[in-house]
Structure formats: C-alpha cells, structure tokens
C-alpha cells in the first residue's frame, strides 16, 4: 500500500519537474508537502480508530470554521478558495474531503445499520452544510466531491437503494433549476464546452482540446520525460496542477497511463478490502468512503483531461501540484492504514 502510494508520488514529482520546466522551487515545495503529508500519515496510522472517532467532531467543526473564514480572508484568482496561513496556503475545502466522511462515520458508528431515514436526514445536513458553503465560494467541483464522499459513507452504511434512487431522481430534477437560477455563466460555459469543445476552440474549448492533444500525441510509449511540447510551449493550461496528468500521459504514453491507473485501482480496491476487514463500523465507513472518494478524484480528473467529463477543478491525486490536496490525501491514507493496523492488532 505504501509502495503503491510511493510510486504515484514519485510519478507526480517526475511529472511536476517536467511540467514546471524544471523549477526547483516547485519541486521543493511539493516535496515539503509530501513530506508533511507522509509525517501526518504515519502519525494518523498510529492512532486507534477509537481515538479518531472521538476526534472526528472536533476535526469537522474546525474545518467548517476554517471554511467559514474563507469568504472573509480568502484569496484566489477567480474564486476565493485559499487561506493564507503565512507559511503556506490552506484550501479548507480539501480538509472537508476527509472530515465529512469522518463525521458521517462518527454519527453512524453507534446507530443501527442499515441507516434509518431519520439518520439519513441528519447526515444530509452534516454533508449538505459544508457542500453548500463550498459551492458558494464558488467551487462547484469540490462541493460535489465533498458531498460525494459523504454519500459514499451513507451508501456503505446501507443507505437503502430506494432512497438512493430518489436522491438521484431529485438531483436530476434539480439540474435544470440549477441551470437557470444558480449556475454562473462560466460554469454553464464549461458544461456547454464539454458537450462541444469545437464550439470555441480558442476560448472555453481550449483546455479540453489541448489536453486531448497532449494525451493523444503521447501515443503508446510517450514522448519521453521532459519532451512534452504541449506543456513546454504553454499550449496546455494549468499543466502543473489540474492538467498535470495530461503532461504525464504525453510524456509516458499509454503504457505509463495504464500503469499508474492500475496502481490507483490497486490502492482503491485495497482500501475497500481493508474497510471490509475492519471490525467496527466507524473504521469501515471511514476507510471505505475515503477509498471511493479517492477513486472519484482519479476518475473525474482522468475523465476531464480526456474530455470524458466536464472541466472541474479537481486535481489528480498525488500527481497534481497542490499542497492541501497532497497533505490531506496522504493524511486520509494515514486513517486507512490506521484502520488496517488496528484491526490486525485487535485480532
């Protein structure tokens, strides 16, 4: 598990070096975060699920508070997403990706499963509050992912298929309403562009087209490390962050992509396996929903880069440059490994 993570982190560092045009500064910054994340991972892995469970509400409330500060003290280019903590920028929304599953698991750990309707309503509030706060930042993509991680927790806790179906139907019904009353123009653009990137190749369609070109031109074996023309010549936007995986695909080709995706798959399935092995519901739910959320990041980013999904600001886990994301993801695996370690000990 750690080896798999290390492979991905290494691939990320290698890609960053190339995409960032050999910038030592970027490399060091990312390295520091990875180191911090690994430290956190090791610390969290030592905590027993019991301790984590007690800690969950505090973590949730703390991350909510930080999130609440963002509109007032936040910074960012198009949306206020970051908090400037002096030493580094913190993206509180990323924290919620962990704390939401934690709080749901905390709430459900002593309830009867499968979840009852009343509990579902409570959980919906627990999930909905931070999601709504993130959505108005506005960062719709992260909001949906945070909501998804909570929903995964509910799903693993036995949310009835009937309720799940109703939720999906309601969400579909809400979509047109959201389109008319809520989505901002640039968000509509992204969706329209996703449907037809050729519509505005120089504008909104640029990202999708250029990243598809980057991926496609990589071919079977790739152009070789550092040979990404799409990134070096700045055709590919955000090539160190959201589109870093496109650079990886261009340089290492389908062989590299398939390899990394299989490693990701291994991590996710392994996490699910760990979850099922856990002998109490908090650990199960936390580990399982974090694993599924992790997979969603991979799938959304990987799909976005190839034009399968609309452009949303979701990084490729551990490959994209981004501090909070790397640290929180590694921390999440700290939780997962903690669950594993302690269920083993318990045996």
């Amino acid at each position, binding site marked *: 598990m750690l080896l798999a993570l290390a492979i991905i982190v290494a691939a990320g560092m290698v890609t960053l070096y190339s995409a960032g045009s050999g910038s030592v500064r970027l490399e060091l910054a990312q390295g520091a975060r990875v180191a911090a994340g690994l430290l956190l991972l090791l610390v969290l892995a030592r905590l027993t699920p019991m301790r984590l469970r007690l800690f969950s509400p505090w973590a949730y409330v703390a991350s909510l508070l930080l999130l609440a500060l963002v509109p007032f003290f936040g910074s960012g280019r198009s949306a206020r997403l970051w908090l400037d903590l002096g030493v580094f920028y913190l993206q509180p929304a990323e924290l919620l990706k962990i704390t939401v599953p934690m709080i749901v698991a905390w709430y459900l750990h002593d309830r009867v499963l499968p979840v009852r309707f009343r509990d579902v309503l409570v959980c919906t509030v627990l999930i909905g509050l931070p999601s709504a706060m993130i959505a108005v930042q506005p960062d719709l993509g992260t909001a949906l992912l945070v909501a998804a991680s909570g929903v995964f927790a509910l799903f693993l806790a036995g949310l009835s298929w009937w309720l799940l179906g109703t939720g999906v139907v309601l969400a579909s019904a809400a979509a047109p309403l959201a389109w008319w009353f809520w989505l901002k123009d640039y968000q509509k653009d992204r969706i329209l562009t996703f449907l037809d990137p050729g519509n505005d190749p120089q504008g909104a369609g640029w990202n999708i087209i250029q990243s598809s070109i980057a991926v496609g031109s990589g071919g079977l074996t790739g152009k070789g490390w550092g040979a990404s*023309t799409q990134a070096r010549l700045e055709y590919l936007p955000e090539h160190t962050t959201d589109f870093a995986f496109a650079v990886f695909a261009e340089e290492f080709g389908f062989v590299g992509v398939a390899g990394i995706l299989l490693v990701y798959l291994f991590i996710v399935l392994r996490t699910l396996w760990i979850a099922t092995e856990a002998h109490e519901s908090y650990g199960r739910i936390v580990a399982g929903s974090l694993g599924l959320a992790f997979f969603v990041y991979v799938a959304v980013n990987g799909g976005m880069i190839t034009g399968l999904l609309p452009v949303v600001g979701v990084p490729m886990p551990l490959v994209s440059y981004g501090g909070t994301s790397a640290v929180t993801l590694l921390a999440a695996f700290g939780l997962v490994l903690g669950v594993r370690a302690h269920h083993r000990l318990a045996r």
Partner: protein
Amino acid sequence: MKPLRNAMAEAALFRRRAWVAGIAVILASAVLIGRYFELQVLRHAEFKTRAEANRIKLRPLPPARGLIYDRNGVLLAENLPAYRLVLIPEQIEDVETTLRELGALMSLDEADLQRFRADYQVARRFRPVTLKLRLDEAEMARFAVNGHRFQGVEIAPYFTRHYPLGPEFAHVVGYVGRIAESDLARIDETAYAATTHIGKSGIERQYERLLHGATGVEQIEANAQGRDLRVIARTPARPGQNLHLSIDARLQRSMANAFEGQPGAAVAVDPRNGEVLAMVSLPTFDPNLFVNGISHADYRVLTQDQSQPMFDRVLDGTYAPGSTVKPFMGLAGLELGLRTPQATTFSSGAFRLAGQAREYRDWKGGGHGAINLRESLAQSVNTYYYKLAHDMGIDRMSEAMQRFGFGHPTGIDLPGEESGVMPTREWKRRRLKQEWYPGETVVAGIGQGFWTATPLQLAQGIAAIASGTRQPLHVLLATQDGLDAPRVAHRAQLPKRSTGYFGSAQNLAAVRDGLTAVMHGPTGTARASAAGSEYLMAGKTGTAQRIGRTGTRSLNPNNLPMHLRHRALFVGFAPVDAPRIAIAVVAEHGGAGSRVAAPIARKVMDAWLLGKEVAPAVASLPEAPAAPAAPPASTPQGDLPGCRDSRAPLRGGGTGSTGRCCLRSRSSSRREW
C-alpha cells in the same frame, strides 16, 4: 437507548456494499483506461499531427526580385536594402494611441495611415502590418531611441526596388508598387505570402512571374502566445530571374535627347529580328516615386499635367498616321495588281470624286503633274493615293492594311497595348451607326479620317518593309537561365490571320526605292534630314492635320497654338541595303514631319549606326500648355539629372481628384483626335 445491533449482519451488509462499489470502481477504471487507449493508441496519429500543427508555424521568406538589364548589361532595376516600420497587431494594445505617438516621432502621411488601417483590419493577428516604408536615417535613429516605449512596433529590413535610370525607362521597365486588392486576382496569394510589391506596369508587370521568384518557407517552433522560439527547418526562397532587355540604354538616352524637350514618342527596332532597341515616350516621370507609395501631391502633379507624362505614347498613343501610310498603300497597290511601279497618276492639285463637289487637295498648289510610285513617295503626292484608295475600295484596303498590322496590337511583350483603328464598313456601322461614304476611303488613302495607329504599329510596319517579313516585336532579350527569350516574349503572338508575309521582293524593292528617294532624291521631302549621311536612309514623313484644310487657304502651322499644331511623323530605316534599324517617330506639337520628326530619326540612326550619341539639347522649350513660362535653362529631356529636373515645370498642375490607377487616365486622352 441503543437499539439492538447485529454486528454480523452489519458486516455482511458492508461487505455487500463494498463489493458493489468495488465492481463499480473496476468498471469505471476500465472505461477510463479504454478512453486513454482510444486517444493514445487508436487516435494517436490524429493528435500527433495536431500537436505538431500547434507547435510549428510556417513563416514565408520573400524571394529577391530579379534584376533588369539593358542589352549591354546596364542596370535598369535593382534591389536596395531599406527599412520599414511594422506593427504586430496581437502585441498592440490601442492602435490609435500607438499611431498618435509614432506620429510625433516621424511623419506619417494620410495615405500611409489609410492604407495601414485598411491592412490592419484584415491582417492576421500575428502577421506584421507595414506602416511606413523606406525609413530615413533620422527616423531610424529616433525610433531606436524611443522604440522601447512601443510594444509591438518594429523596424524590419526589406529590399526596395530602385530604377537607377529613373525616367528614361519609366514606360518600358515600368515600376512595382504595393500589392493592392486589384492585384490579388492575378496572383496566387500563397506564392506571394511574403511579398509586398508587385509589377504594376511595363516589363515589371509583363514578366512578373519570372521576376518574382519562389517564396521560401521557415518552419518555426512557436509557443501558445505565438512567440517564435527557434527555426526547425528552412527552405530558402528562390530569387527571381534576371532579365536582359533588347533596349540599348545609350540609344534610349540619345533618342530622348533628340526630341529636345518636345512631347512625343519614338521607337526603334531591329528589322532583322524584331528586337526593340529604344522606346521613348515623352514627357516621362520618375518611376521611383511609385515604389514606396507616391504622395498625393506628386500624384496630382503627374495626373493633372496636360502633357500626360504617365501616358505611354508608344503603346497607347493612337495617332492619325498621315502620309506615313503611303509606303503601305503603295505596296498594297502593287500587290493587288492595281498599279505597277511605273504607272503614273496625274496630280492637278485637287482630286474630285465623280459627281461630288468636294476637293481633296495636294499639299502643293497646282499639283505635281504625272507621278509614278517612286515620285509619289518622294514628294508625298496625295492625289496618287486618293486615286489608289478609291480604286482599291475600303474593303480591300482594310484587309491589306490589317495584314500589315494596322488595327491590331503588335503583340509586343508589354502590357496594355492599344490596337488603333483600321476602319471598315462594319466598324463604322457598329461604331457610328452610319454607312461608309466613298469620300472616307479617299481620305483614308493618306492616313487621315478614322484611321489611327500607334508608333509601335508604324515601327513594326516600316521594319517589315525594310526586311520583307513582319517580325514579332519584343523587348525581352534573354533571361538569366537562358530561357528562350523570344519564345517567352511571344506568348502573345501575331494575330492569327497574319503570316508575316509583307510583299514580293520586287514590290518591296520598288517601295524601298521610293522611300530612299524621300531621303536622298532631288525632290525628296526629307532630303534635308539625310544631307551628309554616311549611309543610305529610307523613310517617309507624315504630317497629321489637326485642322482641316479648307479651300486653298493654307495655314502656317508654326503660328498655331501648340496643341493645335500638326503632328509630325516619320517612319524610316537604314542602311537601305542591309537595314539594321527601323524607326517610327511622332512629335506631338511638331508641325511638318519633314522638318521636325525626320531630324529626330536621323539623330537616332546616327547614334545607332555611327555611335554618335545625342547630347542633351540646351535650347529652351517653346511655350507649352503645361508650363507657359518654362525657364529657358531647363531642358526637360536632358540626361539623367536633367530628366529629374523635368518634373519641375510639370509641378504647375492644379487641384482635383486623383484617380487610383494611372493606367485608367489614358483612355481619356486617346480620343482627342
């Protein structure tokens, strides 16, 4: 408080859910990997191409335009290094502000600005747009100091066309100018991707394809902002062909000097092969003015000048040929069997058609008496030709004269040649909606009436009488690559009906004999011009009347205002036994052909056959409509500096609109007859 929990059931539930999730994850991964497989393996070629297309930009490289030389290697058109100011649209924030600030640095005239704005609007964003050509040193220096303030404004080197002999070859070599919208139709725009100028007139236009060369291309790696990073590959431009003309620059200058400042036209050809040796239309202009865009003031002066310097009289001046048609008429009479060389016609001083009161007069009161072909030419006896024309009838006459080249362009390798008019019944019916009258045949017999011809047609005709066959005329002598120049030159061949046959040797000899008598006979009208010549000349004078002769009253042409004076014409060749030069001269305000045009021809022949170059005249220009009070010292058609000065007296032009195209203005003058 806690409900009963079934740990086993919960674990089982979780396991089921985890299985569902796991399967979903595997399926989604399969879709994702499939998508990468599609892009990277199945559609790799497509995206690879697009990545290359992204990365590599093509930049066209302009070819160097071919040089133009005279027959002895004297340079007539060259390329000089120069600098121009360009703006790159994508780097300019506010173009009007930039223009205003640049205007403070250097003079930008309205024409430059207008053209720039038009170009700027349609230009590709990364393609530099020229604002000002031929920066002078002061402008370069000022921009070098202030250039850092102007984002997206650059100085770019280029080659500008220059004509060292300027006005002397303005009509033959022509000039280049910026590619205008009207030029786009005749070029392949991609072949001209880097070219700014194109041949607008003369040889420059005629042989544009040879002179232009082939555009090269540079493959450049560019980033997403369009900035060039490095050159990947380069196909150099292929320079245009250097052209050698058949014109002799010294003869050209002598011919111009021989006019001594009068307006007119002359063309000399080698009768053996149709090479044009000299070709002058006066007054002329400086073609260098047009290369980088002529200023409105200069253009107005040129177009409003009544003596029309831009008008190429050799190709486009259609003059009543007058008595210069007599050798052709005489030859036609022999060829048609209507006359023998010895047959005489009696000249009483006036010819009358049966049943008509109108008299057609000879120039000599009381007539010339009994006249054969030789004397009819020597003395230029009108009655001989009145009667001959009447006997021939307009139909046979038109046919014969068209065979001699009248009424059709000669097909010379220069653009925009006029055909003149060889009238027929059909022509008159179409043109004037009238029947042909017999009297019109009579006046046509002496080259008056509807008949008009260009100096070029007269030169080709007289050269044919000299050599026996009608040669296609050409100005191009050779190309750098040794292309078969005459073949290149004669894409436009003689009219189909023409065979080149001009007459039997016997008949031609009789006509040549008469033409020699014009110069050397005791009665010859131009004998004064041949006096003391070291070789035998043949020729024929002509005086085209601008005011009809009424009654017996004769007008002294020298007392008439310039523009009403007769036009003096002369056609001739020399030496008679082995002709090496044939010439046609039109002096527009000349009076009698014998007195004005023939001496010009003599000087040109002396220059060619004996090497006697004609020095610029010092005599003052007699009163001219364009410059009534020309300073006596000014010699408009002098040598090179003199020629440049010649524009000075023309600067008197008034105001008014200026046409876009200089060729257009010709049509207005054509019909002044």
